[in-house]
């Protein structure tokens, strides 16, 4: 039994092929998905998606969205997604530092929430480059 994964963003299709196993970060923690998983609909948090393909783990940074799993088809709809290998490490690191500085500077509730979200996004991108395995 094979598992089909498609990762979609509003602007492009990031991934559309078979995989062996994925680990998805949902709002209530990470879940691993193997073939013949029970149907499930879940929100996707800002976090990394790990994909096992030919016994190698790939990573992808997901920026929050929604996933549907059923019938060996996984559809992940996210606001934005980037493959770990496509991210420029230097640029990601810089963004992270900038985001950290912004969190300290942020005033007011709205700004704080936005800065925190930006920080989480930046952190996810850095994590996607050097996955903790």
């Amino acid at each position, binding site marked *: 039994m094979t598992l089909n994964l*498609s990762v*979609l*963003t*509003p*602007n*492009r*299709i990031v991934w559309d092929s078979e995989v062996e196993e994925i680990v998805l970060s*949902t*709002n*209530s923690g990470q*879940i691993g998905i193997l073939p013949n998983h*029970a*149907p*499930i*609909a*879940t*929100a*996707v*948090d800002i976090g990394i998606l790990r994909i096992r393909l030919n016994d190698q783990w790939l990573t992808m940074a997901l920026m929050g*969205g*929604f996933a*549907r799993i*059923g019938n060996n088809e996984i*559809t992940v*709809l996210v*606001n934005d997604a980037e493959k770990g290998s496509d991210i420029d490490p230097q640029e990601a690191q810089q963004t992270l530092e900038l985001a950290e500085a912004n969190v300290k500077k942020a005033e007011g509730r709205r700004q704080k929430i936005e800065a925190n979200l930006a920080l989480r996004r930046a952190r996810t991108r850095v994590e996607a480059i050097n996955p903790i395995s």
Partner: protein
Amino acid sequence: MAMAALRREGRRFATPLISPNPTNALRSSLIPSQEPVSSGVRCISTQVVRNRMKSVKNIQKITKAMKMVAASKLRAIQTKTENSRGLWQPFTALLGDTPSVDVKKNVIVTISSDKGLCGGINSTSVKISRAIHKLNSGPEKENKYVVLGEKAKAQLLRDSKKDIELIMTELQKNPLNYTQVSVIADDILKNVEFDALRIVYNKFQSVVAFLPTMSTVLSPEVVEREAEAGGKLGELDSYEVEGAETKAEVLQNLAEFQFSCVMFNAVLENACSEQGARMSAMDSSSRNAGDMLDRLTLTYNRTRQASITTELIEIISGASALEG
């Protein structure tokens, strides 16, 4: 400015060309080849025809340029549209597109363009919206409009002003992107109460074919009710729902996400149709201007020839009178 000029010209052409029996010399000269210029009569100055020819030529230039602009814009937006289609299809697979679900508060989101000269796409979406409004009206039912785009606003304000909840225009000032559309979607969700959102837009089939389409987005409560009742949405119940404290919360998030995705696709489809429609409209009007120019050239040459002939006859007869 170009549009205003075009409209003005259009009106000027319209009257003389369709009037069945012209009343004055100026008008009759503009009807090409139907009434031969009676010989011996000094015709109206060719200046009028020449001016008309010049203006037709200018209009043709404008419409040609507009066609080119539309064509190049269309190419860019078409790829975007095709990419965005993948985004709402999974939602349709999960939640279904259920136009038949009967609910109390309908909100019709009419999507149109800000600029005109693009065929009938705006009036189609307005017509469809009105039809849906009528179809869903009844006792204890509420229908509201949310209008996107200048053109539908102008048409709907005329007769359904009291039903319009929200108007947004100048969508396409910047290139369309998902962030922008999701902000708009958020605005609509926050300001409008609904059980079902019905999004009306023109779906892009090809450069000459646009399908007026309605997408339905149900509110989370309705989704839950329908899922429990079975039917088309019953499939949703077979999914385990994860990711938040309660199922309602997930459904709420899901509905919001679905709406912004569907909106994104709808806005892109409509923009794509707009460019396509404008391209074909401008193409036919440049062709029309070409035809008109041909006819005018014919008339002009004939008039010129006639006046030359008359002058020659005058000279010759004058000379022979002197000799005799």
